[in-house]
């Protein structure tokens, strides 16, 4: 297996060595899949979107000028592909794209999750899966992919302030649920 940096792979693929695109897929497929699963809440849709995203990346790679980081450009494509799938499935996009405001309530589902969770880790992870798309997305991009708020704002097409608000509201919502179940007492 070739040992190339991301930049070298990009140059090589643009030059015409299409086979090297496989290295880029291996580099990003898991992270993109995690993001898509959180957005689409369905493994099959996530797989389909993953393939579509990489095809789009391959076909438009020559348009990547390198002004921004490749990861930001890549996630933007992944995000837009997921949005297309959501709208093509005729889901209520307004509902899907809503975000946590000051009040986030799961109702009875929360009690169910709480009773099934073995510990606070499991509980919080389950709640993250149920967060509205944009909130879950910000959390994944920030915590798993290590994107800065500036990069996240580029991916989502919102201002940095809005990206920050989304992240803070997501944390606040999770904190309120942790407090509700007194999980914080676990911490010494």
């Amino acid at each position, binding site marked *: 297996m070739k040992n190339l940096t991301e930049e070298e792979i990009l140059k090589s693929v643009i030059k*015409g*060595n*299409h*086979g*090297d*695109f*496989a290295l880029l*897929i*291996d580099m990003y*497929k*898991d*992270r*993109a*899949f*995690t993001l898509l*699963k959180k957005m689409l809440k369905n493994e099959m849709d996530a*797989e389909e979107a*993953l*393939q579509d995203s*990489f*095809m789009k990346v*391959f*076909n438009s790679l020559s348009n990547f000028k390198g002004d921004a980081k490749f990861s930001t450009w890549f996630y933007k494509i992944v995000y837009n592909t997921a949005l297309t799938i959501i709208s093509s499935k005729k889901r209520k996009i307004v509902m899907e794209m809503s975000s946590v405001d000051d009040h986030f309530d799961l109702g009875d589902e929360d009690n169910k999750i709480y009773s099934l969770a073995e510990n*606070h*880790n499991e509980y*919080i*992870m389950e709640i*993250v899966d149920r967060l509205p798309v944009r909130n879950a997305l910000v*959390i*994944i991009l920030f*915590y*798993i992919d290590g994107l800065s708020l500036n990069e996240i704002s580029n991916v989502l097409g919102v201002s940095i302030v809005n990206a920050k608000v989304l*992240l*803070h509201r997501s*944390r*606040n919502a*999770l*904190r309120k649920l*942790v*407090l509700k179940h007194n*999980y*914080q*007492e*676990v*911490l010494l």
Partner: protein
Amino acid sequence: MKEVTDEILNKLIDNELSSSEIDELHQLIKKDEKLLSKTKAHQMVDNVLKKLEIEHAPQNTTDLIMEKITQSVLEKEKKNGLFKFIISTFAVSMLLVVGFILFSKPDGEGVSKSFFNAAKEKLAESFTNFSLPISYDLLLIITSALTIIVLISGYFIFEEHKSFKQKLDSIL
């Protein structure tokens, strides 16, 4: 710091508070148990989120995508190839026709003019009528130049085909 807001707790997590602000916050936490719980819960959320795990894409993902890419590259090249083939064939046949008319030997005297001789004269005539200050010799030069251009284009098409085959091999 009069009141510890959500924003301050988020700043604490993101290391955006100054050391004096952190000290002030700790003083407030000591006096207020509710605030202590709130801060603990906030830190707990941050700690758990830092442990979020990447989910693995299905194993055959790379192969499936590369297969799709190969197909799309092939289709693209096929379309391009067909277009180039049509253009080249058209250009070559045009040149052949013009070349044949211009270079074919005239028949002997007494023999009636062949169709090609007639066409040749007509062609030369039309050039003199319409264009022009183009002499017969100049016409020959132009035709030769065109032939060379077509041959060079043919060479490039061949080279491109070779590089496409190499690209294909790199994918497969």
